[in-house]
Protein backbone atom coordinates (compact mmCIF):
# COMPACT_ATOMS: atom_id res chain seq x y z
CA UNK A 1 0.00 0.00 0.00
CA UNK A 2 1.27 3.46 -0.80
CA UNK A 3 1.62 6.16 1.82
CA UNK A 4 -1.69 7.76 2.63
CA UNK A 5 -2.63 10.92 4.48
CA UNK A 6 -4.42 8.75 7.01
CA UNK A 7 -3.32 5.21 7.70
CA UNK A 8 -4.71 2.71 10.12
CA UNK A 9 -2.71 -0.34 11.05
CA UNK A 10 -4.29 -3.34 12.67
CA UNK A 11 -6.70 -1.32 14.75
CA UNK A 12 -8.44 -3.26 17.52
CA UNK A 13 -11.02 -2.11 19.99
CA UNK A 14 -12.28 -4.48 22.65
CA UNK A 15 -14.76 -3.41 25.28
CA UNK A 16 -14.17 -5.23 28.52
CA UNK A 17 -17.35 -6.36 30.22
CA UNK A 18 -18.01 -6.34 33.93
CA UNK A 19 -16.72 -9.27 35.90
CA UNK A 20 -19.70 -11.47 36.68
CA UNK A 21 -17.99 -14.40 38.34
CA UNK A 22 -15.08 -14.07 40.65
CA UNK A 23 -12.80 -16.64 39.08
CA UNK A 24 -13.91 -16.27 35.50
CA UNK A 25 -12.14 -13.87 33.23
CA UNK A 26 -14.61 -11.16 32.21
CA UNK A 27 -15.61 -11.34 28.56
CA UNK A 28 -15.11 -8.58 26.08
CA UNK A 29 -16.96 -7.25 23.08
CA UNK A 30 -14.65 -7.31 20.11
CA UNK A 31 -15.82 -4.30 18.16
CA UNK A 32 -12.77 -3.97 15.94
CA UNK A 33 -10.56 -6.93 15.08
CA UNK A 34 -7.62 -5.57 13.21
CA UNK A 35 -8.76 -2.95 10.74
CA UNK A 36 -6.12 -1.66 8.37
CA UNK A 37 -6.59 0.91 5.69
CA UNK A 38 -4.77 3.68 3.97
CA UNK A 39 -6.49 6.74 2.59
CA UNK A 40 -4.66 8.89 0.10
CA UNK A 41 -4.93 12.63 -0.05
CA UNK A 42 -7.90 13.93 -1.96
CA UNK A 43 -9.78 10.71 -2.33
CA UNK A 44 -13.16 9.66 -0.99
CA UNK A 45 -12.86 6.42 0.84
CA UNK A 46 -16.05 4.51 1.55
CA UNK A 47 -16.59 2.20 4.49
CA UNK A 48 -19.68 0.03 4.29
CA UNK A 49 -21.18 -2.67 6.44
CA UNK A 50 -24.32 -3.51 8.32
CA UNK A 51 -25.14 -1.84 11.60
CA UNK A 52 -23.01 -2.98 14.51
CA UNK A 53 -20.06 -4.03 12.38
CA UNK A 54 -17.79 -1.37 13.82
CA UNK A 55 -18.00 1.46 11.29
CA UNK A 56 -18.75 4.14 13.86
CA UNK A 57 -16.28 2.66 16.31
CA UNK A 58 -13.61 3.07 13.64
CA UNK A 59 -14.60 6.69 13.15
CA UNK A 60 -14.67 7.48 16.86
CA UNK A 61 -11.33 5.79 17.40
CA UNK A 62 -9.69 7.78 14.62
CA UNK A 63 -10.84 11.14 15.97
CA UNK A 64 -9.78 10.14 19.47
CA UNK A 65 -13.14 9.76 21.20
CA UNK A 66 -12.25 6.14 21.91
CA UNK A 67 -8.90 4.71 22.85
CA UNK A 68 -7.87 1.79 20.65
CA UNK A 69 -6.99 -1.42 22.45
CA UNK A 70 -4.28 -2.05 19.90
CA UNK A 71 -3.08 -0.68 16.63
CA UNK A 72 -1.76 2.53 15.20
CA UNK A 73 -3.36 5.49 13.52
CA UNK A 74 -1.02 7.52 11.37
CA UNK A 75 -1.81 10.99 10.14
CA UNK A 76 0.78 12.10 7.59
CA UNK A 77 3.08 9.48 9.02
CA UNK A 78 2.74 10.56 12.67
CA UNK A 79 1.21 8.19 15.17
CA UNK A 80 -1.69 10.11 16.67
CA UNK A 81 -2.37 7.69 19.52
CA UNK A 82 0.83 8.81 21.21
CA UNK A 83 0.55 12.54 20.60
CA UNK A 84 1.29 15.13 23.24
CA UNK A 85 -1.35 17.59 24.34
CA UNK A 86 -0.56 20.49 22.03
CA UNK A 87 0.10 18.22 19.07
CA UNK A 88 -3.25 16.62 19.72
CA UNK A 89 -4.92 19.98 19.34
CA UNK A 90 -3.23 20.39 15.98
CA UNK A 91 -4.39 16.94 14.91
CA UNK A 92 -7.92 17.68 16.04
CA UNK A 93 -7.98 20.64 13.73
CA UNK A 94 -6.90 18.49 10.83
CA UNK A 95 -9.22 15.51 11.21
CA UNK A 96 -12.88 16.22 11.81
CA UNK A 97 -16.10 14.29 12.03
CA UNK A 98 -19.54 14.86 10.54
CA UNK A 99 -22.13 13.21 12.73
CA UNK A 100 -24.97 11.03 11.62
CA UNK A 101 -27.66 12.53 13.81
CA UNK A 102 -27.53 16.26 13.35
CA UNK A 103 -30.16 17.08 15.91
CA UNK A 104 -28.04 15.32 18.50
CA UNK A 105 -24.66 16.69 17.54
CA UNK A 106 -25.65 20.35 17.73
CA UNK A 107 -26.09 21.67 21.24
CA UNK A 108 -29.85 22.23 21.66
CA UNK A 109 -29.28 25.30 23.83
CA UNK A 110 -26.86 27.04 21.53
CA UNK A 111 -27.61 29.26 18.58
CA UNK A 112 -26.03 28.40 15.26
CA UNK A 113 -23.54 31.20 15.77
CA UNK A 114 -22.61 29.99 19.25
CA UNK A 115 -22.19 26.42 18.03
CA UNK A 116 -19.87 27.53 15.26
CA UNK A 117 -17.95 29.89 17.53
CA UNK A 118 -17.10 27.28 20.15
CA UNK A 119 -14.46 25.32 18.20
CA UNK A 120 -12.81 28.53 17.00
CA UNK A 121 -12.66 29.91 20.50
CA UNK A 122 -11.19 26.64 21.74
CA UNK A 123 -8.43 27.12 19.18
CA UNK A 124 -7.77 30.55 20.61
CA UNK A 125 -9.05 32.74 17.81
CA UNK A 126 -9.98 36.39 18.17
CA UNK A 127 -13.58 37.56 18.25
CA UNK A 128 -13.50 39.57 15.05
CA UNK A 129 -11.76 36.85 13.06
CA UNK A 130 -14.35 34.38 14.29
CA UNK A 131 -17.23 36.50 13.09
CA UNK A 132 -15.70 36.93 9.65
CA UNK A 133 -14.86 33.28 9.30
CA UNK A 134 -18.35 32.22 10.29
CA UNK A 135 -19.99 34.53 7.76
CA UNK A 136 -17.62 33.32 5.09
CA UNK A 137 -18.32 29.67 5.74
CA UNK A 138 -22.07 30.21 5.95
CA UNK A 139 -21.74 31.41 2.40
CA UNK A 140 -19.68 28.39 1.47
CA UNK A 141 -22.30 25.83 2.50
CA UNK A 142 -25.16 27.89 1.13
CA UNK A 143 -26.81 29.06 4.32
CA UNK A 144 -28.39 32.44 4.86
CA UNK A 145 -26.75 34.50 7.59
CA UNK A 146 -30.16 35.15 9.14
CA UNK A 147 -29.98 31.60 10.47
CA UNK A 148 -27.11 32.49 12.80
CA UNK A 149 -29.45 33.47 15.60
CA UNK A 150 -31.58 30.33 15.36
CA UNK A 151 -31.53 27.32 17.62
CA UNK A 152 -31.05 23.86 16.08
CA UNK A 153 -34.69 22.89 16.64
CA UNK A 154 -35.72 25.86 14.52
CA UNK A 155 -33.84 24.53 11.48
CA UNK A 156 -34.92 22.02 8.86
CA UNK A 157 -33.13 18.69 8.48
CA UNK A 158 -31.13 19.86 5.49
CA UNK A 159 -30.15 23.11 7.18
CA UNK A 160 -29.10 21.22 10.27
CA UNK A 161 -26.83 18.95 8.27
CA UNK A 162 -25.34 21.95 6.49
CA UNK A 163 -24.59 23.47 9.87
CA UNK A 164 -23.15 20.08 10.92
CA UNK A 165 -20.89 20.02 7.88
CA UNK A 166 -19.85 23.59 8.48
CA UNK A 167 -19.20 22.76 12.09
CA UNK A 168 -16.80 20.04 10.96
CA UNK A 169 -15.16 22.18 8.28
CA UNK A 170 -14.77 25.39 10.22
CA UNK A 171 -11.41 24.39 11.65
CA UNK A 172 -10.20 23.87 8.09
CA UNK A 173 -9.47 20.14 8.35
CA UNK A 174 -7.72 18.01 5.77
CA UNK A 175 -9.51 14.78 6.51
CA UNK A 176 -13.24 14.67 7.13
CA UNK A 177 -14.85 11.54 8.46
CA UNK A 178 -18.52 11.47 7.59
CA UNK A 179 -20.41 9.01 9.76
CA UNK A 180 -23.57 8.25 7.78
CA UNK A 181 -24.03 11.94 7.02
CA UNK A 182 -27.19 11.53 4.96
CA UNK A 183 -28.97 8.53 6.43
CA UNK A 184 -31.14 10.66 8.71
CA UNK A 185 -32.23 12.96 5.89
CA UNK A 186 -35.08 12.95 3.40
CA UNK A 187 -34.22 11.41 0.06
CA UNK A 188 -34.74 14.74 -1.69
CA UNK A 189 -32.18 16.41 0.55
CA UNK A 190 -29.69 13.55 0.50
CA UNK A 191 -28.62 14.40 -3.04
CA UNK A 192 -28.18 18.07 -2.18
CA UNK A 193 -25.94 17.26 0.75
CA UNK A 194 -23.88 14.80 -1.30
CA UNK A 195 -23.41 17.40 -4.01
CA UNK A 196 -22.42 19.96 -1.42
CA UNK A 197 -19.86 17.56 0.02
CA UNK A 198 -18.50 16.88 -3.46
CA UNK A 199 -18.29 20.55 -4.18
CA UNK A 200 -16.52 21.30 -0.92
CA UNK A 201 -14.05 18.50 -1.54
CA UNK A 202 -12.95 20.12 -4.77
CA UNK A 203 -12.79 23.62 -3.36
CA UNK A 204 -11.04 22.80 -0.11
CA UNK A 205 -9.13 19.72 -1.34
CA UNK A 206 -10.57 17.52 1.36
CA UNK A 207 -10.09 13.83 1.95
CA UNK A 208 -13.21 11.97 2.93
CA UNK A 209 -13.73 8.81 4.90
CA UNK A 210 -17.36 8.19 4.10
CA UNK A 211 -19.17 5.73 6.33
CA UNK A 212 -22.47 4.32 5.22
CA UNK A 213 -24.60 1.21 5.07
CA UNK A 214 -25.89 2.21 1.66
CA UNK A 215 -23.75 0.69 -1.10
CA UNK A 216 -25.43 2.75 -3.78
CA UNK A 217 -24.53 6.02 -2.14
CA UNK A 218 -20.99 4.89 -1.47
CA UNK A 219 -20.63 3.71 -5.04
CA UNK A 220 -21.75 7.08 -6.31
CA UNK A 221 -19.65 9.09 -3.92
CA UNK A 222 -16.42 7.19 -3.31
CA UNK A 223 -13.28 6.33 -5.20
CA UNK A 224 -12.48 3.29 -3.15
CA UNK A 225 -14.62 1.12 -0.91
CA UNK A 226 -13.89 -1.13 2.03
CA UNK A 227 -16.51 -3.61 3.16
CA UNK A 228 -16.62 -4.35 6.87
CA UNK A 229 -17.98 -7.36 8.63
CA UNK A 230 -17.85 -7.86 12.39
CA UNK A 231 -14.98 -5.50 13.01
CA UNK A 232 -12.91 -6.62 10.05
CA UNK A 233 -12.41 -5.47 6.53
CA UNK A 234 -13.33 -8.33 4.22
CA UNK A 235 -12.93 -6.65 0.86
CA UNK A 236 -11.27 -3.50 -0.41
CA UNK A 237 -11.24 -2.24 -3.96
CA UNK A 238 -11.85 0.56 -6.40
CA UNK A 239 -15.46 1.58 -6.31
CA UNK A 240 -16.32 0.59 -9.91
CA UNK A 241 -14.40 -2.64 -9.69
CA UNK A 242 -16.14 -3.64 -6.48
CA UNK A 243 -19.51 -2.88 -7.98
CA UNK A 244 -18.80 -4.80 -11.17
CA UNK A 245 -17.10 -7.85 -9.76
CA UNK A 246 -17.50 -8.31 -6.04
CA UNK A 247 -15.38 -11.17 -4.78
CA UNK A 248 -16.31 -11.78 -1.19
CA UNK A 249 -19.60 -13.67 -0.71
CA UNK A 250 -20.67 -11.04 1.81
CA UNK A 251 -20.13 -8.21 -0.67
CA UNK A 252 -21.99 -10.24 -3.29
CA UNK A 253 -24.96 -10.63 -1.00
CA UNK A 254 -24.93 -6.93 -0.14
CA UNK A 255 -24.88 -5.94 -3.81
CA UNK A 256 -27.57 -8.42 -4.69
CA UNK A 257 -29.81 -6.76 -2.13
CA UNK A 258 -29.80 -3.46 -4.03
CA UNK A 259 -33.07 -3.22 -5.88
CA UNK A 260 -33.20 -2.31 -9.57
CA UNK A 261 -30.38 -2.03 -12.06
CA UNK A 262 -27.12 -2.97 -10.41
CA UNK A 263 -24.92 -3.50 -13.46
CA UNK A 264 -24.27 -7.17 -12.85
CA UNK A 265 -26.34 -10.30 -12.93
CA UNK A 266 -26.53 -11.62 -9.43
CA UNK A 267 -29.29 -13.72 -8.05
CA UNK A 268 -30.77 -12.27 -4.88
CA UNK A 269 -28.74 -13.84 -2.15
CA UNK A 270 -30.47 -14.12 1.17
CA UNK A 271 -28.16 -14.75 4.08
CA UNK A 272 -29.13 -17.15 6.81
CA UNK A 273 -29.38 -15.90 10.35
CA UNK A 274 -28.15 -12.68 11.91
CA UNK A 275 -24.68 -11.32 12.25
CA UNK A 276 -22.97 -13.25 15.04
CA UNK A 277 -22.38 -11.54 18.35
CA UNK A 278 -19.08 -9.68 18.63
CA UNK A 279 -19.02 -11.01 22.19
CA UNK A 280 -18.29 -14.48 20.91
CA UNK A 281 -17.23 -14.37 17.26
CA UNK A 282 -17.08 -17.61 15.28
CA UNK A 283 -13.83 -19.45 14.70
CA UNK A 284 -12.01 -19.27 11.39
CA UNK A 285 -13.61 -16.86 8.98
CA UNK A 286 -16.13 -14.71 10.85
CA UNK A 287 -18.53 -14.93 7.97
CA UNK A 288 -18.59 -18.72 7.58
CA UNK A 289 -21.81 -19.47 9.55
CA UNK A 290 -23.78 -17.35 7.10
CA UNK A 291 -21.78 -17.98 3.96
CA UNK A 292 -23.40 -19.71 1.01
CA UNK A 293 -20.09 -20.87 -0.39
CA UNK A 294 -18.40 -22.09 2.74
CA UNK A 295 -15.85 -24.86 2.62
CA UNK A 296 -14.40 -27.13 5.26
CA UNK A 297 -11.41 -24.87 5.83
CA UNK A 298 -13.54 -21.80 6.59
CA UNK A 299 -14.58 -22.83 10.07
CA UNK A 300 -11.06 -23.44 11.28
CA UNK A 301 -8.59 -21.19 9.47
CA UNK A 302 -8.85 -17.44 9.30
CA UNK A 303 -8.38 -16.19 5.73
CA UNK A 304 -5.69 -13.62 4.98
CA UNK A 305 -6.11 -10.43 3.00
CA UNK A 306 -4.87 -11.17 -0.55
CA UNK A 307 -4.59 -9.02 -3.63
CA UNK A 308 -6.61 -10.92 -6.24
CA UNK A 309 -6.45 -8.44 -9.05
CA UNK A 310 -4.64 -5.12 -8.99
CA UNK A 311 -5.74 -3.03 -6.01
CA UNK A 312 -8.54 -5.43 -5.24
CA UNK A 313 -8.06 -7.07 -1.87
CA UNK A 314 -10.24 -9.72 -0.32
CA UNK A 315 -9.97 -11.98 2.67
CA UNK A 316 -11.65 -15.21 1.66
CA UNK A 317 -10.48 -18.80 1.13
CA UNK A 318 -12.11 -18.88 -2.30
CA UNK A 319 -9.32 -16.85 -3.83
Amino acid at each position, binding site marked *: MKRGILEIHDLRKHYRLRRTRLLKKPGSIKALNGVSLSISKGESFGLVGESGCGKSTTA*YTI*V*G*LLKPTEGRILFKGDDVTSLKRNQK*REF*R*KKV*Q*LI*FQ*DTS*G*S*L*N*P*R*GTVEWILR*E*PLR*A*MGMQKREIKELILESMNLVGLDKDLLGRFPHELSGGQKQRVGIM*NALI*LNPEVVIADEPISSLDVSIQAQILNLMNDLQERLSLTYLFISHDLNVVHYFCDRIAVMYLGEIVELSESEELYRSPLHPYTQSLLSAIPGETGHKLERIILEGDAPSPLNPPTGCFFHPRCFRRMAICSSVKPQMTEVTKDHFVSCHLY
Partner: protein
Amino acid sequence: MNKRRINLWIGIVLISILLLMMIVSLFYTPFPVTEINRLERFEPPSMRHLLGTDNFGRDVLSRIMKGSQTAFFVGLVAVSIGSVFGVLIGAISGYFGGIVDEIIMRIVDAMMAFPSILLALMFVSVFGVGLRNTIIAIGIMSIPSFARITRSGFVQHKELDYVKNAKIKGVSNLRIMFRHILPNVLSPIVVAASMGFANAVLAEAALSYLGLGIQPPNPSWGRMLSESQVFITVSPWYAIAPGVLITLLVLGFNFLGDGIRDIRENR
Protein backbone atom coordinates in the same frame (compact mmCIF):
# COMPACT_ATOMS: atom_id res chain seq x y z
CA MET B 1 -56.01 29.93 32.07
CA ASN B 2 -54.10 26.88 31.05
CA LYS B 3 -54.72 24.12 33.57
CA ARG B 4 -51.08 23.12 33.59
CA ARG B 5 -50.01 26.59 34.55
CA ILE B 6 -52.21 26.80 37.64
CA ASN B 7 -49.55 25.38 39.98
CA LEU B 8 -47.09 27.92 38.75
CA TRP B 9 -49.46 30.82 39.27
CA ILE B 10 -50.50 29.76 42.77
CA GLY B 11 -46.83 29.54 43.63
CA ILE B 12 -45.97 32.89 42.12
CA VAL B 13 -48.89 34.65 43.81
CA LEU B 14 -48.16 33.16 47.25
CA ILE B 15 -44.46 33.95 47.06
CA SER B 16 -45.10 37.45 45.71
CA ILE B 17 -47.40 38.29 48.60
CA LEU B 18 -44.90 37.04 51.16
CA LEU B 19 -42.04 38.73 49.35
CA LEU B 20 -43.95 41.99 49.35
CA MET B 21 -44.52 41.64 53.09
CA MET B 22 -40.81 41.03 53.57
CA ILE B 23 -39.88 44.12 51.53
CA VAL B 24 -42.37 46.30 53.43
CA SER B 25 -40.96 45.05 56.73
CA LEU B 26 -37.55 46.38 55.75
CA PHE B 27 -38.92 49.91 56.00
CA TYR B 28 -42.06 49.71 58.10
CA THR B 29 -43.62 47.55 60.78
CA PRO B 30 -46.76 48.63 62.70
CA PHE B 31 -44.83 48.41 65.99
CA PRO B 32 -41.16 48.04 66.83
CA VAL B 33 -40.57 44.29 66.83
CA THR B 34 -38.82 44.09 70.19
CA GLU B 35 -40.94 46.65 72.03
CA ILE B 36 -42.34 45.08 75.21
CA ASN B 37 -45.65 46.32 76.52
CA ARG B 38 -46.75 44.66 79.76
CA LEU B 39 -50.18 46.21 79.67
CA GLU B 40 -51.09 44.54 76.38
CA ARG B 41 -50.15 40.89 76.91
CA PHE B 42 -52.14 38.20 75.06
CA GLU B 43 -54.41 40.65 73.33
CA PRO B 44 -56.69 39.00 70.78
CA PRO B 45 -56.67 40.39 67.25
CA SER B 46 -58.04 43.91 67.14
CA MET B 47 -57.80 46.99 64.96
CA ARG B 48 -54.76 48.08 66.97
CA HIS B 49 -53.01 44.70 66.84
CA LEU B 50 -54.26 42.91 63.73
CA LEU B 51 -52.86 39.55 64.84
CA GLY B 52 -52.93 40.19 68.59
CA THR B 53 -49.96 40.33 70.92
CA ASP B 54 -47.66 37.78 72.55
CA ASN B 55 -46.65 37.01 76.12
CA PHE B 56 -44.54 40.17 76.29
CA GLY B 57 -47.21 42.32 74.70
CA ARG B 58 -45.26 42.54 71.43
CA ASP B 59 -47.24 43.00 68.22
CA VAL B 60 -47.47 39.60 66.49
CA LEU B 61 -47.99 41.06 62.99
CA SER B 62 -44.80 43.11 63.28
CA ARG B 63 -42.87 40.09 64.45
CA ILE B 64 -44.30 37.92 61.66
CA MET B 65 -43.29 40.53 59.11
CA LYS B 66 -39.79 40.77 60.51
CA GLY B 67 -39.62 36.98 60.70
CA SER B 68 -40.21 36.73 56.95
CA GLN B 69 -36.84 38.42 56.46
CA THR B 70 -35.19 35.59 58.35
CA ALA B 71 -37.13 32.96 56.40
CA PHE B 72 -36.25 34.39 52.98
CA PHE B 73 -32.66 35.11 53.92
CA VAL B 74 -32.08 31.63 55.30
CA GLY B 75 -33.81 30.03 52.32
CA LEU B 76 -31.89 32.04 49.76
CA VAL B 77 -28.44 31.61 51.24
CA ALA B 78 -28.92 27.96 52.16
CA VAL B 79 -30.19 27.08 48.68
CA SER B 80 -27.29 29.00 47.15
CA ILE B 81 -24.78 27.06 49.21
CA GLY B 82 -26.51 23.77 48.50
CA SER B 83 -26.92 24.32 44.78
CA VAL B 84 -23.46 25.71 44.07
CA PHE B 85 -21.65 22.91 45.86
CA GLY B 86 -24.20 20.28 44.87
CA VAL B 87 -23.98 21.16 41.18
CA LEU B 88 -20.20 21.26 41.32
CA ILE B 89 -19.95 17.87 42.99
CA GLY B 90 -22.63 16.33 40.81
CA ALA B 91 -21.07 17.68 37.63
CA ILE B 92 -17.62 16.32 38.43
CA SER B 93 -19.04 13.01 39.50
CA GLY B 94 -21.29 12.56 36.51
CA TYR B 95 -18.93 13.88 33.88
CA PHE B 96 -15.77 12.05 34.83
CA GLY B 97 -17.39 8.90 36.18
CA GLY B 98 -15.22 6.00 37.26
CA ILE B 99 -13.70 5.77 40.69
CA VAL B 100 -14.19 9.47 41.49
CA ASP B 101 -17.89 9.07 40.83
CA GLU B 102 -18.10 5.97 43.00
CA ILE B 103 -16.41 7.62 45.96
CA ILE B 104 -18.41 10.85 45.76
CA MET B 105 -21.69 9.06 45.33
CA ARG B 106 -21.10 6.74 48.27
CA ILE B 107 -20.44 9.78 50.46
CA VAL B 108 -23.60 11.41 49.13
CA ASP B 109 -25.54 8.19 49.80
CA ALA B 110 -24.29 8.19 53.37
CA MET B 111 -25.35 11.81 53.79
CA MET B 112 -28.76 11.04 52.39
CA ALA B 113 -29.23 7.99 54.59
CA PHE B 114 -28.56 10.16 57.61
CA PRO B 115 -31.62 12.10 58.80
CA SER B 116 -30.88 15.63 57.66
CA ILE B 117 -32.33 17.39 60.68
CA LEU B 118 -30.09 15.29 62.91
CA LEU B 119 -27.11 16.30 60.81
CA ALA B 120 -28.06 19.94 61.20
CA LEU B 121 -28.55 19.48 64.93
CA MET B 122 -25.13 17.93 65.21
CA PHE B 123 -23.53 20.71 63.22
CA VAL B 124 -25.18 23.42 65.27
CA SER B 125 -24.32 21.80 68.58
CA VAL B 126 -20.68 21.43 67.56
CA PHE B 127 -20.18 24.86 65.98
CA GLY B 128 -22.65 26.78 68.09
CA VAL B 129 -26.11 28.19 67.58
CA GLY B 130 -26.90 31.32 65.61
CA LEU B 131 -28.08 32.51 62.25
CA ARG B 132 -24.85 31.87 60.37
CA ASN B 133 -24.39 28.33 61.55
CA THR B 134 -28.05 27.55 60.97
CA ILE B 135 -27.73 28.65 57.37
CA ILE B 136 -24.53 26.69 56.81
CA ALA B 137 -26.04 23.58 58.36
CA ILE B 138 -29.15 23.79 56.20
CA GLY B 139 -27.02 24.49 53.13
CA ILE B 140 -24.84 21.45 53.70
CA MET B 141 -27.94 19.36 54.29
CA SER B 142 -29.25 20.19 50.84
CA ILE B 143 -26.02 19.46 48.94
CA PRO B 144 -26.71 15.73 48.36
CA SER B 145 -30.00 16.19 46.57
CA PHE B 146 -28.52 18.79 44.23
CA ALA B 147 -25.51 16.57 43.61
CA ARG B 148 -27.72 13.62 42.74
CA ILE B 149 -29.92 15.52 40.33
CA THR B 150 -26.99 17.19 38.61
CA ARG B 151 -25.09 13.95 38.33
CA SER B 152 -27.94 12.11 36.65
CA GLY B 153 -28.25 14.88 34.06
CA PHE B 154 -24.52 14.80 33.35
CA VAL B 155 -24.39 11.02 33.09
CA GLN B 156 -27.15 11.17 30.50
CA HIS B 157 -25.76 14.06 28.51
CA LYS B 158 -22.07 13.24 28.41
CA GLU B 159 -22.79 10.38 25.99
CA LEU B 160 -24.69 12.60 23.59
CA ASP B 161 -23.25 13.60 20.25
CA TYR B 162 -23.09 17.30 20.99
CA VAL B 163 -20.69 16.61 23.84
CA LYS B 164 -18.60 14.30 21.64
CA ASN B 165 -18.62 17.01 19.03
CA ALA B 166 -17.31 19.57 21.50
CA LYS B 167 -14.57 17.14 22.56
CA ILE B 168 -13.42 16.62 19.00
CA LYS B 169 -13.28 20.36 18.53
CA GLY B 170 -10.88 20.61 21.44
CA VAL B 171 -13.19 22.42 23.86
CA SER B 172 -11.86 22.10 27.42
CA ASN B 173 -13.56 19.76 29.88
CA LEU B 174 -14.44 22.61 32.20
CA ARG B 175 -16.13 24.52 29.42
CA ILE B 176 -17.96 21.43 28.18
CA MET B 177 -19.26 20.82 31.68
CA PHE B 178 -20.49 24.29 32.50
CA ARG B 179 -21.18 25.93 29.16
CA HIS B 180 -22.28 22.98 27.07
CA ILE B 181 -23.92 20.47 29.39
CA LEU B 182 -25.13 22.52 32.35
CA PRO B 183 -27.61 24.71 30.40
CA ASN B 184 -29.16 21.51 29.06
CA VAL B 185 -29.67 19.90 32.46
CA LEU B 186 -30.63 23.04 34.33
CA SER B 187 -34.39 22.63 34.57
CA PRO B 188 -34.52 19.82 37.15
CA ILE B 189 -31.95 21.75 39.15
CA VAL B 190 -34.18 24.83 39.14
CA VAL B 191 -37.09 22.71 40.32
CA ALA B 192 -34.91 21.25 43.06
CA ALA B 193 -33.86 24.73 44.10
CA SER B 194 -37.46 25.79 44.50
CA MET B 195 -38.29 22.71 46.58
CA GLY B 196 -35.03 23.17 48.45
CA PHE B 197 -36.11 26.68 49.40
CA ALA B 198 -39.26 25.26 50.97
CA ASN B 199 -37.22 22.66 52.83
CA ALA B 200 -34.79 25.28 54.07
CA VAL B 201 -37.62 27.38 55.49
CA LEU B 202 -39.00 24.30 57.23
CA ALA B 203 -35.59 23.29 58.54
CA GLU B 204 -34.96 26.76 59.90
CA ALA B 205 -38.35 26.70 61.60
CA ALA B 206 -37.61 23.28 63.03
CA LEU B 207 -34.18 24.25 64.34
CA SER B 208 -35.50 27.50 65.78
CA TYR B 209 -38.41 25.64 67.29
CA LEU B 210 -35.91 23.42 69.07
CA GLY B 211 -34.11 26.54 70.23
CA LEU B 212 -31.02 25.86 68.14
CA GLY B 213 -31.66 28.23 65.29
CA ILE B 214 -32.29 31.95 65.39
CA GLN B 215 -31.75 33.36 68.85
CA PRO B 216 -34.12 35.80 70.63
CA PRO B 217 -34.97 38.59 70.45
CA ASN B 218 -34.68 38.24 66.66
CA PRO B 219 -38.01 37.02 65.37
CA SER B 220 -38.20 33.70 63.56
CA TRP B 221 -41.37 31.89 62.67
CA GLY B 222 -40.17 28.60 64.09
CA ARG B 223 -39.16 30.23 67.32
CA MET B 224 -42.49 32.06 67.58
CA LEU B 225 -44.22 28.74 67.13
CA SER B 226 -42.31 27.14 69.97
CA GLU B 227 -42.78 30.12 72.31
CA SER B 228 -46.48 30.30 71.62
CA GLN B 229 -47.04 26.63 72.31
CA VAL B 230 -47.09 27.14 76.08
CA PHE B 231 -49.86 29.69 75.76
CA ILE B 232 -51.93 27.90 73.15
CA THR B 233 -54.97 27.66 75.45
CA VAL B 234 -54.72 31.31 76.45
CA SER B 235 -54.08 32.84 73.06
CA PRO B 236 -54.36 30.43 70.11
CA TRP B 237 -53.94 33.21 67.48
CA TYR B 238 -50.35 33.67 68.62
CA ALA B 239 -49.58 30.11 67.53
CA ILE B 240 -51.75 30.14 64.44
CA ALA B 241 -50.09 33.15 62.76
CA PRO B 242 -46.53 31.80 62.38
CA GLY B 243 -47.85 28.32 61.61
CA VAL B 244 -49.97 29.57 58.74
CA LEU B 245 -47.14 31.70 57.37
CA ILE B 246 -44.68 28.81 57.36
CA THR B 247 -47.26 26.68 55.59
CA LEU B 248 -47.96 29.35 52.97
CA LEU B 249 -44.32 29.95 52.16
CA VAL B 250 -43.52 26.25 51.92
CA LEU B 251 -46.61 25.66 49.80
CA GLY B 252 -45.74 28.59 47.59
CA PHE B 253 -42.31 27.22 46.74
CA ASN B 254 -43.61 23.70 46.28
CA PHE B 255 -46.25 24.96 43.86
CA LEU B 256 -43.62 27.02 42.04
CA GLY B 257 -41.37 23.98 41.72
CA ASP B 258 -44.21 21.83 40.43
CA GLY B 259 -45.23 24.56 38.03
CA ILE B 260 -41.74 24.91 36.56
CA ARG B 261 -41.48 21.17 36.17
CA ASP B 262 -44.82 20.97 34.39
CA ILE B 263 -43.76 23.60 31.90
CA ARG B 264 -40.35 22.08 31.22
CA GLU B 265 -41.75 18.61 30.75
CA ASN B 266 -44.49 19.84 28.51
CA ARG B 267 -42.15 21.37 25.99
